[in-house]
Each structure stands twice: as structure tokens, then as C-alpha cells.
């Protein structure tokens, strides 16, 4: 396998892996806090489930970036195209915005959502506001995704 293709695969893999780690840690943090709240009042489950699920989107973004790269280099269809080393690097670097932004923002969004869950324990009616705080961290994951998508869009490759 050529270096170019290897690099492209590495980029795609890093996008989905790091995004997944960010979400996993984030949802885990929020879930732990949520479980603590439920131990006192299981009735709050409906309000908490959204808060706990919110950091999960970063993994989806990473997965999307992975998918876009895989389609672009033809690997999903089984006909991988030949990539030069530079093209491979370009694809690898294109994946980094979403990979790194989702990794870090996922973890921090998890912390915000965990705090939101703790707040919902005392003031259940304000759970919606906690959700908005959590959504604010997501801005940067979204920007990372947009950057990745536009860069990928701009890289012109021979058709598979």
C-alpha cells in the first residue's frame, strides 16, 4: 500500500477514534453524575437523559468525517484510488480539525453536562437551561467539522 493511502486512512481513523474518545469520556462523565442524581430521585430520568446524551454528538461528527474520507478515497467501495504522498498528507491534516476539536470539546461538554445534571437535582425546572450551556461547548466541535468538510471538499482527487 502506498504511503499516500496509508496517511489518508490514518486521518480518517483518527477522526472517528478521537471523536469517539471525546464523546465516550464526555457521556461517561455526565452519566456518572446523572446516576448519582437518579439514586436520590429516579423520577428525574426524563429530564436527565438529554443532558447525558448531549456530549454524544462529537462521536457522530468524527464518524461523518471518516465516512466522507472513505468515500473520497474509494476505500468503502473496495476500489482504493492511488494517492500521492502529498494528497495523503492533505487528507490527514484535513481530518485533524474535527478529530482534535471533538476530542477536547467532547470531554469538556461532558463536564458541563455533569454540572448541569447536578443542578437539575436541585432545580429540575431549570434543566432546559443546563442543556443550553452544554450546547454552547459544542460550537467548537461544529466549527471543527465545518472546517474539515470544507477542506475535504477543496481537495481534488482523481475519481475512483
Amino acid at each position, binding site marked *: 500500500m502506498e504511503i499516500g493511502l496509508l496517511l489518508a486512512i490514518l486521518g480518517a481513523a483518527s477522526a472517528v477514534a478521537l471523536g469517539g474518545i471525546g464523546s465516550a469520556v464526555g457521556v461517561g462523565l455526565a452519566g456518572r453524575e446523572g446516576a448519582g442524581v437518579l439514586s436520590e430521585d429516579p423520577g428525574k430520568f426524563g429530564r436527565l437523559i*438529554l443532558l447525558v*446524551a*448531549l456530549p*454524544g*454528538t462529537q462521536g*457522530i*461528527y468524527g*464518524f*461523518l468525517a471518516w*465516512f*466522507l474520507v472513505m*468515500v473520497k478515497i474509494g476505500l*468503502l467501495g473496495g476500489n482504493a484510488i492511488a494517492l500521492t504522498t502529498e494528497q495523503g498528507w492533505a487528507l490527514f491534516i484535513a481530518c485533524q480539525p474535527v478529530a482534535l476539536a471533538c476530542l477536547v470539546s467532547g470531554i469538556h461538554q461532558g463536564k458541563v453536562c455533569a454540572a448541569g445534571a447536578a443542578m437539575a437535582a436541585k432545580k429540575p425546572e431549570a434543566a*432546559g*437551561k443546563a*442543556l*443550553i450551556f452544554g*450546547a*454552547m461547548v*459544542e*460550537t467548537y466541535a*461544529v*466549527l471543527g*467539522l*465545518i472546517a474539515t*468538510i*470544507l477542506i475535504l*471538499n477543496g481537495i481534488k482527487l482523481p475519481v475512483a
Partner: protein
Amino acid sequence: MAVGKVYRVFVFALKVSVEDVLAEIQELASVHLENTRDVIQELEGEPDSSEGSTLSRKLVQVESAIAALTPYEKPLTLLEKLARERPRYRVEDLARLDEDLGVDRLAAEVNSLAERDMKLAREADSRGAVLGALALWESLSEKLRDVASPTPSTVGFFVRVPAKAEEQLFSLGEDVAWEVLGRTVSQLRLIAVVWCDVAEETKQKIAELGGEIVALPVVDRTPAQESQRLAGELDAIRAERAKLAQDLAKLSSKLEPLRASRDYLAIRLQREEARHLLSSTERVAVLAGYVPETKRDELARRLERFGSAVKVVFEGPVEDESAPVVLSNNAVVEPFEMVTRIFGLPQRHEFDPTPIITPFFALFFAIALTDAGYGLVIMLVSALARRFLKLSSAVKGFMRLIFVGGMMTVAIGVLTGGYFSIPQEYLPSFARRLILVDPMTEPTTFLYMVLGLGFLQVWFGMMLSFVKHARSEGVRVALYLDLPWIVLLPSVALYLAAWIGQIPSQWTVAGYVALAAALGVVLFKGYEHRNVLLRVGVGAYALYGGTSLIGDILSYSRLMAFGLVTVGIGMAVNHLSRLVRGIPVFGLVAMVLLLVAGHLFNLLINAFGAFVHTARLQFIEFFGRFYEGGGREFVPFVPQTKYIDVEP
């Protein structure tokens, strides 16, 4: 479209009528009660709550009876549970039901049965534990008491040790006499007999070797005999518990009226608690609160039946900030009140933003979701849920909201060619003709369109800020503060568009307009300052702050990202399903399953994200320009029930 009009109401009632007046007001379910002493400081005290503690006690008893009987209720399927309607009662019927049922007696009976059952369960558990312990020692033919106290100066006990400790055990010394009762590969069971004074020491040594001292009952029976006796007792317990279960099961038919009684008690207790908000003189109780204009006459009518025992006074409509806020909107806008509520209700002097965010919210939600197929699914599910399932009014409202969102999503999906992310080659030609922009192949165009919509909303927000300032401080001030920005934004946009060549270059003249507007900001933002330097300074700082507008508009780019995510994940699901189809035998089934599960997952995740982020955009980039919120919620005094619905 505004914040609803609200009247202040005072009710003066003879103390004997207070309970009935509260009942009447509770049934109306539209009066917000205030702490009377905050309003009329001169009065002290409140009407005696005679029944409070009795009602609390009865409520606890009935609730524990319900908890005891619920396990014996016939279980319902999930569908039955969702479709089951809450029973409806009128308050008079509840009072009669209470008497007919003999609630106190019934609850007491159920509770005593349940208590007895719990006690028996504990006894069964402890006997079971002893039986388990005895089981290993049944080969012993001596009485347990004889083993425990063989002589007055010795004591015996049962020991279990891991087999490998055997050597060490026997080397513990001559003070210990051992009798091996049983041996397995891993364990040794023996009796140890020691002098009383070294008993504790020996036990400790045995424990150090990993051994366990087994506590068995000290009785005049062999293990086998004791086991038999205990087994007999267990059987008796089981039989009695079976009878108790039968009795409880029979009583479980009374569960529904018992639940209704519970809610009746709860309602009465709520009235008792409401009494704390009243104040009183020697013979008269005073109640203060708020009632919406729409319910004022009905309240007056209901209280008329008390004749001269009750006098009602209305004041209003209330204008000041202290009054709680009631929203009144038409049927299309009303579901979106929930979005406004997340942020906060308007204060009385503000206007209700809900009608304004309704179209924006629906549109942006649709753009974030971007698939006509998903839109249809949402419409279908929400319509069916509202029709066939019994839902609380809050959930019903939410269903209406997403129905509207779903409708918009269908429209946007048609414009972007999204039908469950099917590739465009497979779409019929009329569908392809309707496509305005395909997010996947033209992401930058899609982005510009979304940013354009964001620009429009931010601009509209500035105009609303003009309206807000005009209402509160006059048109002149509004012109100073907002007009420069309202002109600046589009003129800068036009200039930039001409500069990068998107529109004819004649439009660069807009640059001059922009400069004039910028000058307007600098000169007029600090209009209230006499000092020219200060005024210009404040204005310049405000102009500098205008750079945050770039960030605000860029924030809308997330809608483009979400739209792309929906399409992208949908494509991934389709692609994977195609691959899976190749599997022999199960391929087709797996493909269908993957398609359904994958698209459902995609729909849920993206609908959720679309809702949260669209709301966030309204709150931060839009509300921030003209809306403060933080109004006090109008909380009507209503009968709060758990199991039944109260019919007025």
C-alpha cells in the same frame, strides 16, 4: 400576541366558608395565589389549619396501602399502558367515593396485611439462612447443645477450613481436641473442643488460618432434627404468606377507587397548605392573588353562590412588574411557548417573543434536519401520538411543535433533495428539478445561504431592538441607538459582496453608506453624555464591539453542519446496508434491519440536536438583542393529582 392581561383579586370570606372558597378557586384552576401578608402588611395570622396533620397522616397510610396492593394488580401490556386514559372524577363524586369506600378501614386492613407479610418474609429469610448453615452438618448425630457445651469447663464449635490448612490446624496445640466430620477436596469440616479460657484465642488462630467458625443454633436436637423442624416452620410461613397474598389480591380490585381517594386527600391537603398564604382578622379570612382577564368573570360568578359570606374585589389590569406573567397565543404559536419558557418568560413591560421565534425556529430546525423523509416520519409520529395516546398537555404541545417542525423539514428536504439520503440518481426527475442546493456537493453554497438567513435574523433582531427602545424610551432614543446599526449591517454586507465580486461592482457605493452609518454609531451611541469626548469614546467602543456581529452570524453556520451530518450519516447507513445485503441467507433481513435502525438513530440524534441548537441560536444571537426575560411565572392554584383527572 402580547403578554396576557392580569387582574389582582382580593377575596374576603367568613372563616367558616374558607374551605369551600378554596375548593371553588382550586377547581377553577386559574388563580395565582400570593402570600397575603406581602400585599396587606397590616394583617397578621392565618385561619387555623385544623385538618392538616390528620390529612397528612391519612395520605401516608393510603399511599402505603396503594404501594402494597400494586404488585397484585393485573399487569398491562406496553400498548395498554400508553393508551390507558386516566380516570376522570368530579370533586363531589370524590367526596362520596371516600365515604362509600370506608377508606380508613380499607387502608388499615391492607397495611396490616402487608406488614404481617413483611414480618413473615423476614422470619422466612432468617430460618432459611440457618437451614443453609445446618445443611452441611447433618451427618452429626449428636445434639447441638452437647457439642456446644460438652462439659462445664469446655466449649465446642463448628469449623470450616480450606483443606490446605489442615496441618497447621492440628498443630495448634494440645488444648484443642478435633473431630473431623467431613472432608472434600477443598474443605475440611470439624468440631473443635477447647477449654473455655482459651476459646477466644483459639477462634482467632483458626480465623488467621483462613478458617470459619460456623454459628449454629444451640438446641437439644441434632442438626438433622433441627433442620426438619425449621423446614416445617418454613412451610407454615409459606402457607400463611400464600393466604395473605390471596387476600391482598382480592383487595387489589379496590385499587382504582383507592387511588382516587388518595388524590382526593392530596387535593384537600393542597387546600390546607394554601391556607398558609391567607391572613385573617377575628372572623374574616383574606386571600390575595392574580387572575387572568379571561377568567375574571367566571371567578366572580363562582364565588357569587356564597352570597354575603364572601366579597370579591378586582383591581386592574395590573401594569407593574410584580405581577406574574401569562402568555396568550394562537394555536400555531402556542406550542413554541415551551422554547420561550426554557429561556424565561417576558417581564410585563416586554412583548412576548414567541410569535416571532415561531417561524425562525421552525425554519432553522428544518435546515438542521434537512430530510423530507425524516420530516414525514416526524409528522406522522407526532400526529398519531396526539390522536391515539393519552398524553399530558405539555407533551401534547411538544408534539404540535415538532409537527410544525416536521412540516418545514419536508419543505426544506424537497429543496435539498433529501429523501432518506437516497442518492440523487435514483430520484424521479420532478424531484430533482425541485432541488435548490445539494448540501453534499455544494457545501459552500449551502453555507452561504445559511449565513444569509442568520444575517436576516440578526438584522431583524436589531429592528426589534429599535421597537423595544421606542416603546420604553421614545422614538428619538431608538433612532440614536439602533438606526445606525440597522443601516450599517446591510450596507457592510453589500459592500463586501461587491468587493469579492458576487454582485455588480456598482454596489461598492454601499461602502459610503456603511461609513456614514459607522459614524452614526460613534456619534450617537453615547447620546446621553454632554461631554463630547466621552460621547465619542463610548460610540467608538460600541463600534469596536460590532465585530462580535461576525461571530454571531458565523454561529449560524452550525445549521449547515447539522444538515450535512444528517445527510452524511444517512448516506453511511444506506451504504452499509447495501454492503450487508451481500451476506448469504440473512442478507436481506439484515439490510432492512440496518436501514430501519440506522435511519431511526440518525433521525433521533439529529432531531434532538436540531432542537437544542436552534433554541440556542434563538436565545443567544437573537434574544440577546432585544429580550431580557426573567418574568415571574403565573402558577395557578390547581388540583394536583397523581392518578386521576379532575373534571371541573
